């Protein structure tokens, strides 16, 4: 089974990298972008075929390592 985990910064947390990307896009002449926030994507393969238990495994992976919940949110998609 495959899953995708998306980790994003919480609202209000400063994102200097996102700001730099936003400024770079504007300097490359790509207009109309009002904000960029950078995040991370993890594509994960899981041995388990039961979606509920796979989700539980991925949740503990996020809580223990993949996201720092002080500043980050995570979403789990079973694909």
């Amino acid at each position, binding site marked *: 089974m495959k899953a995708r985990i998306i980790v994003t910064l919480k609202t209000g947390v*400063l994102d*200097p990298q996102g700001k730099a990307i936003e400024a770079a896009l504007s300097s490359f002449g790509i207009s109309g972008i009002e904000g960029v926030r950078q995040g991370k994507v993890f594509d994960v393969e899981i041995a388990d075929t039961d979606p509920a238990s796979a989700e539980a495994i991925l949740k503990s992976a996020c809580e223990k390592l993949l996201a*720092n919940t002080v500043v980050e949110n995570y979403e789990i998609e079973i694909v």
Partner: protein
Amino acid sequence: MRAAIVVFPGSNRDGDVARALRLAGAEVVKVWHTDTALPAGTDLAVLPGGFSYGDYLRCGAIAGRAAAMDAVRDHAARGGLVLGICNGFQILCESGLLPGVLMRNVDRRFICHRQMLRVERADTRFTSAYAKGQVIDVCVAHGEGNYFADPETISRLEGEGRVAFRYADAAGELTVDANRNGSLNSIAGIYSEKLNVLGMMPHPENFVEGLIGGVDGRGLFESLAA
């Protein structure tokens, strides 16, 4: 004073902090990150600077979950002293031993320069050789030193007197220019609730010998070894 320095793959300041501790009179041993216990009689566990695990995922994230960190956590829970410098501070935050997180510097640059710090209190095991309000001249070298925590955590840290050092100018003023990484409240280092764990971004171990350019970092190691 018996100090155990935990070395992770990518630690690179373990030798310098060992030297600073020995100069102050401490006995020093190194512990590998896979070790599950600290040597018997360890008074102080040290997490040195460097780039553990290449800063992959987030700075300190993987090291914060290493086997040796369980031993450090137990040591701290028993009231043992823990010092984390630079990457060590990031590891302490990631391991949950200290609150908050070190984010990318506000100007996105790796900063590496001499840095004045204001000593916020001199009544802890880490700072007794300094005076409260003293300004010390040390160094910083980091890309992710921008201290961030939610407003409740910041007010708890401030209310409990748990800010150890702040980025300041030579007069001890907390100016924007002195706070180059953008840390909330100019925070350069914080203590745990029981004041036995200290995490700090600056490097006191850089300045322990006049030949190298300064000696203001000595006080921290002398306080610990006293």
